[in-house]
């Protein structure tokens, strides 16, 4: 068993505390905002100068001047604010944003993260990825646990160019929730039907098992039959 992409996003959403300021990267992270409980106030930030971003705009109701960093038409919630890039990246670099939820290609046991250069990508681009990885208080990674060739993405050492060293706090995958600590990786949760040994099998560095390590408590609609590549 494993989780759907939505399942990974759901796990993150459950962990975001009320009142937190959160930047969501593209891919699985964009799904997170949809799973935050309605009675919990979480503030979403977009690099291009938005705090308090709401859902995507309904078709036909787009505001041409209001997009998110992924260039999608979005909405604002009551209490939102708009501002310029220097202010937006002051929020990021200055450590004011509590969480950045980012996709990653590789994460190392010490928290190193690689997510800006895909293997074989010939035209480089970094966007705000490094600013987020260096600046935000806690970087949460969402990704499939292994590559589409079945290789681990959680490694002893990243092989791809780093986005930032030692930046990741927690990793959410379709198999597990893993904390990155000074004492190494700690397995906190595993997907329904798996066990710690199964997760370890797909993880290069050794996992320590948290004393309260448990099977994920996640609704059945987020279960997937197999690993989602």
């Amino acid at each position, binding site marked *: 068993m494993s989780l759907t992409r939505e399942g990974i996003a759901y796990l993150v959403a459950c962990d975001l505390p*009320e009142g937190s300021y959160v930047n969501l990267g593209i891919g699985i992270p964009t799904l997170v905002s949809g799973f935050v409980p309605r009675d919990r106030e979480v503030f979403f930030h977009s690099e291009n100068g938005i705090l308090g971003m709401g859902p995507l705009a309904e078709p036909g109701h787009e505001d041409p001047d209001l997009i998110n960093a992924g260039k999608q038409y979005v909405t604002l919630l009551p209490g939102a604010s708009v501002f310029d890039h220097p*202010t937006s990246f*002051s929020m990021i670099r200055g450590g004011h944003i509590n969480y950045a939820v980012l996709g990653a290609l590789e994460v190392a046991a010490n928290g190193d993260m690689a997510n800006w250069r895909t293997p074989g990508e010939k035209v480089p681009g970094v966007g705000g990825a490094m600013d987020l990885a260096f600046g935000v208080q806690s970087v949460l990674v969402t990704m499939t646990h292994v590559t589409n060739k079945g290789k681990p993405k959680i490694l002893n050492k990243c092989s791809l160019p780093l986005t930032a060293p030692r930046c990741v706090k927690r990793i959410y995958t379709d198999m597990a929730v893993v904390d990155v600590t000074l004492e190494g990786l700690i397995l906190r949760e595993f997907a329904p039907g798996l066990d710690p040994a199964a997760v370890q099998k797909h993880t290069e560095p050794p996992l320590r098992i948290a004393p309260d390590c448990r099977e994920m408590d996640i609704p059945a609609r987020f279960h997937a039959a197999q690993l989602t590549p």
Partner: protein
Amino acid sequence: MVNKTLATCREAVANVFDGATILLGGFGDPGLPGQMLEALREQGAKDLTMVHNGSGGGTHALGGLIHDGRVRKLIASFPNNPGGTSFQELYLKGQIELELVPQGTLAERIRAAGAGLGGFFTPTAAGTELAKGKETRVIDGREYVFEKPLHGDFAFVRAYRGDRLGNLSYRMAMRNFNVPMVTAAKFVAAEVDELVPVGDLDPEDVHTPGIFVDRVVEVVRHPKYLEITTEGR
């Protein structure tokens, strides 16, 4: 529900500790959190480092804190303002420390702290007494002075309107040091003339997004708490 409002300034300053560095907003009266200052005066913390453009006026607000001997050090650009008698008396007796910083450098150092920068090079003061002992560097043919970010443990400011999420908007010349100061401290509290429901502030009119603010207190302006207007530049 997130609620950053507090009923009193007393609560907003409750955690100020001895030896804290406080970024104090305002330039003259506009933006000066007079009631936070009076609450701080009652609260009692000492050995404070105050960061403010001037040295306050008379024996009230910042002048009062200094008068009471609660301020160990002032970081300011214009502490010799005409009304700043409390500071000036202690300074001449050697009982208060002064770090004199050009006004633009002061604002930029505070901004740099809030923006997560490690420092910057400014042309201001290069070759003058105020650059003595500081690192300098010639960049593209011009001499610059290296300046480090200036962080606060606390920042206290005044704004015009605020909401429970900490969003602030300012009137007229109230923005001054307040906009950078709220980004540069661990704990930030604002006194406001009016607390408004969330959504009343237009997203385009929020000058300080709520992410930078921890506490908001609605207060009634009282002339007693305002700096005198003859403070000078």
